[in-house]
């Protein structure tokens, strides 16, 4: 219809929409008027009153049909029918509240999980970083594939960086950043001292990212030089927390490591730097050339930095990578020292931030997708079952002229109602789950980017439509097929009816069970891997050990003897505290991280070729650390009290180091020499192996005295007989007595520390397990439903069988087998499918084979057991039937 016509008919349309009742009565009146006039006309033509009425009715035709046909011409007719169908749908669903509740909850769980994970995947993995032109940002690392103990993504040394920057000026801008620094912020103006994580960066770092400070200014080249006035930028968070959002913060002084710095800028709250090596919690940013020691800025052998690059338009990541890789090879040949790396690898900044979350998040999304599919199948199965019990009603309606489409529409609307209510509930569930996730996993990169937005709502709507179509169409086509007569006849006396519909449900069930098997296998493998991780032997007993970390500022503790004196005094006082069984100092406790390594050679051995060395992980320890942490001294002795400061030239090595570097000989009395010539140490003992990271194998490790070797930081390790947590406050008081300004960090038990490093694995395995359990419960409910339905349908048949002398045991066996068939078929589909799918999550597994036979066997066993339990009740019921009562059920 043309627009002009449309506008012309607006008043009429409104009237048709809002005054339907009046239109109805007017139509009735119109038809009555017509009849009256016809009757008068017939009377006038000489008919008897009775005849006149009959003839008038005959010429008019079927009045009721006429009314319907006329009404069908009205506008909004479709809408009216829809409302009508909705009303019928609500009425039918509320007649079976139990069914409705279960179906809605099932849908809510499925939809909620999917919406939540979709939002996480979209926000964390796909949403561009909040810098300008983020797709041109890349991180560049060094690579050195010959070193087995290293990850392939190696940090960068400053020496190489300056050369990279010089030679690629036309291809990319580059900035140097060291995100794993930290400062002791002194207490001033009533504020407590604290340790904050910090980063060093070159002056171009923020301009390269396109980040503007919300207050003050960014670094200028003049800030980023050794003798410049000390300047610092702080994050919005730190500004709010420590300075109560003081608007006059710019140019104020902050004391970092007991030195004054001028605050020149506040970073916007949207700024978060999250890379492979962390940085998301950094709160203070300082210029690298002002902060780093000059030796670190020149060296090619000490790798303390990350490199962020903004590629020029038209320059690809692979091009810059190839260019720098070639350059790095030249650097390596010019500096053949072993610590200089020989290659370069690069990846986009987004990949760098979220690489480790890709597989787990996609795996979780896949698992939740499976749960939704199972939920849809279950609801479809329930709708099919309901359609079956109403087959007679449908047959009668069809016989009376009910349109096929209208009947299908009714089923669709029923499933739409279930999906829509489930979807709304699911949306709320998803909101709650995301809220929880943001608080439960602050360690996850880009967790701050998670946002519930219009796209998530749109996704929910799309899922609702898909679920509606899926379960609605299956149930719609299960009903009303075949001829009407069969339906009417079947309803009259059902001996073995409804089997075709049960076949459809069994097919659905087999698929459901197949998916459940896949989920169960995934969950089983992840759980086993988590269990392996959790029970990993760190190398020391983890119970009743407390660790506390502190760091001495160089400005106040200038010389080695000041630091050693402080540490000695501290540990004596800690040992004297009531409740402390033993205590020690170490630069990094087991599981506390990498914390430095160096290349050594053995003086007594033939010299190593140039460019090679023995890679030792380095630890400073006090003489009684080994007994405090429970690390056995296997050979030799620990340090004595005199071996400190300039006499600290003795080391203990780990068993792994002894086996790898001193095969078949006694390391005691041998001497280690640093490749860079910085010293020689005598090996005086061998201790057990410990892990630096729960999920990584132990490295060859070297322990030297912490009193000396320049250490200004330490972890206090305290062992107690019980309630070691209660010692935290007394120990912090001891520290405060010695130095009022010294903050204590990372106060936690060794068990907590281990738990922290397994949190990813725990999170993933528990979520997948939860999905698998939901799937299993749904599948079991489905199995039970189908068999119970079949038994109800065949009650009379069983009655006859029993009356004719069938054995109850045989009947039970028959039914159990009947019920278990879908489970067996599902298992046959699911096991090979799992074998394929689990390969995708291989990177998430720790010391667990993807085809772990125990997991596969346990899953099969569990599934069959649950299936058996689900089938037992209806089968038992059928075999206990009283034949007389069964025959009378009609």
């Amino acid at each position: 219809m043309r627009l002009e016509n449309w506008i012309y008919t607006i008043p009429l349309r409104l009237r048709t929409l809002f005054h339907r009742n009046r239109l109805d009565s007017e139509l009735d009146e119109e038809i009555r008027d017509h009849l009256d006039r016809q009757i008068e006309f017939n009377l006038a033509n000489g008919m008897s009153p009775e005849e006149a009425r009959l003839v008038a009715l005959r010429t008019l035709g079927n009045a009721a049909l006429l009314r319907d046909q006329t009404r069908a011409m009205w506008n909004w007719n479709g809408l009216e029918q829809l409302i009508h169908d909705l009303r019928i749908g609500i009425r039918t669903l509320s007649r079976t509240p139990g069914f409705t509740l279960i179906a809605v909850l099932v849908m809510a769980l499925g939809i909620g999980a999917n919406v939540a994970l979709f939002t996480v995947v979209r926000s964390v993995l796909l949403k561009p970083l909040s810098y300008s032109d983020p797709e041109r940002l890349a991180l560049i690392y060094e690579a050195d594939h010959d070193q087995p103990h290293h990850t392939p993504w190696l940090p960068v040394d400053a020496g190489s960086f300056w050369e990279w920057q010089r030679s690629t000026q036309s291809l990319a801008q580059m900035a140097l950043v060291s995100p794993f620094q930290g400062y002791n912020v002194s207490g001033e103006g009533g504020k407590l001292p604290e340790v904050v994580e910090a980063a060093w960066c070159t002056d171009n770092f923020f301009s390269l990212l396109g980040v503007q400070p919300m207050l003050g200014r960014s670094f200028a080249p003049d800030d980023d030089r050794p003798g410049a006035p000390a300047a610092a930028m702080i994050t919005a968070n730190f500004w709010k927390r420590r300075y109560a959002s003081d608007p006059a913060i710019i140019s104020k002084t902050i004391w970092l490591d007991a030195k004054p710095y001028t605050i020149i800028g506040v970073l916007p709250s949207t700024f978060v730097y999250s890379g492979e090596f962390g940085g998301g919690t950094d709160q203070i940013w300082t210029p690298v050339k002002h902060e780093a020691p000059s030796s670190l800025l020149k060296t090619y052998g000490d790798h303390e930095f990350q490199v962020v690059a903004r590629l020029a338009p038209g320059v690809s990541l692979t091009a810059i990578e190839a260019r720098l890789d070639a350059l790095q090879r030249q650097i390596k040949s010019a500096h053949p020292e072993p610590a200089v790396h020989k290659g370069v690898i690069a990846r986009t900044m987004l990949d760098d931030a979220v690489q480790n979350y890709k597989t787990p998040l996609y795996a979780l999304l896949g698992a939740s997708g499976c749960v939704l599919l199972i939920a849809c199948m279950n609801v479809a199965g329930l709708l099919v079952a309901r359609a079956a019990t109403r087959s007679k009603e449908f047959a009668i309606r069809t016989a009376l002229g009910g349109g096929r489409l209208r009947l299908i529409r009714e089923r669709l609307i029923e499933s739409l109602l279930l999906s829509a209510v489930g979807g709304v509930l699911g949306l709320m569930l998803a909101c709650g789950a995301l809220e929880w996730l943001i608080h439960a996993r602050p360690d996850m990169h880009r967790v701050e980017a998670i946002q519930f937005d219009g796209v998530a709502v749109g996704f929910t709507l799309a899922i609702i439509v898909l679920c509606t179509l899926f379960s609605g169409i299956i149930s719609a086509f299960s009903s009303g097929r075949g001829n009407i007569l069969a339906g009417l006849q079947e309803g009259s006396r059902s001996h073995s009816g409804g089997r075709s519909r049960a076949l459809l449900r069994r097919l659905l069930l087999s698929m459901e069970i197949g998916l459940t098997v896949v989920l169960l296998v995934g969950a089983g493998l992840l759980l086993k891997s988590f269990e392996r991780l959790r029970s990993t032997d760190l190398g020391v007993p983890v119970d009743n050990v407390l660790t506390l970390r502190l760091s001495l500022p160089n400005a106040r503790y200038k010389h080695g003897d000041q630091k050693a004196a402080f540490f000695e005094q501290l540990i004596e006082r800690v040992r004297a505290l009531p409740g402390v069984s033993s205590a020690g100092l170490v630069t990094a406790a087991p599981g506390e991280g990498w914390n430095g390594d160096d290349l050594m050679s053995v003086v007594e051995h033939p010299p190593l070729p140039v460019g090679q060395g023995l890679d030792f992980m380095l630890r400073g320890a006090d003489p009684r650390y080994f007994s405090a942490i429970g690390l056995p001294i296997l050979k030799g002795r620990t340090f004595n009290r005199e071996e400190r400061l300039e006499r600290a030239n003795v080391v203990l090595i780990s068993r792994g180091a002894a086996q790898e570097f001193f095969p078949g000989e006694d390391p005691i009395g041998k001497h280690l020499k640093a490749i860079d010539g910085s010293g020689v140490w005598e090996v005086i003992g061998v201790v057990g192996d410990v892990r630096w990271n729960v999920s990584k194998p132990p490295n060859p490790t070297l322990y030297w005295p912490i009193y000396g070797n320049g250490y200004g930081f330490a972890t206090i390790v305290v062992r107690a007989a019980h309630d070691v947590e209660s010692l935290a406050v007394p120990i912090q008081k001891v520290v405060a007595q010695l130095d009022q300004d010294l903050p204590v960090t990372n106060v936690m038990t060794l068990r907590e520390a281990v738990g922290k490093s397994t949190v990813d694995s725990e999170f993933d395995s528990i979520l997948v397990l939860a999905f698998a359990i939901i799937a299993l419960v749904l599948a079991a409910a489905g199995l039970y439903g189908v068999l119970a339905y079949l038994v109800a349908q065949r009650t009379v048949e069983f009655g006859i069988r029993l009356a004719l002398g069938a054995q109850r045991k045989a009947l039970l066996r028959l039914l159990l087998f009947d019920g278990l068939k879908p489970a067996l078929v599902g298992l046959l589909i699911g096991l090979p499918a799992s074998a394929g799918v689990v390969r995708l999550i291989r990177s998430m597994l720790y010391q667990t084979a993807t085809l772990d036979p125990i997991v596969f066997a346990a899953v099969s066993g569990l599934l069959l057991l649950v299936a058996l339990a689900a089938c037992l009740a209806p089968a038992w019921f059928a075999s206990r039937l009283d034949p007389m009562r069964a025959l009378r059920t009609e």
Partner: protein
Amino acid sequence: MSKPSDLVQGTLDLLILKILALEPLHGWALSQRLKQVSRDVLQVSDGSLYPALHKLEQQGWIHAEWRATENNRRAKFYSLTRLGRRCLEKETANWERISTAISGVLRLTEV
């Protein structure tokens, strides 16, 4: 011809519009007029008139209004709207074109 052909049936709208163009009528009068002018050749059942009338009304081609009639009764009178008049002209021209063409074909004599 006992039954009107489909072609004629499909032009019911046109007939209604034409009759109403002459004067506003209510449903029963319209049915009588239809029988009268077509000399009972077009046997439109009274019932099928109403869906057609309501359709035309919803399209805005005719306008309905309740008016008092004899003996204190009232009836729903249908009259042509401006839109309907324009439409009638178009449909009439259309019909004449088609019927001329068809008559022409039917007048062909076998050779």
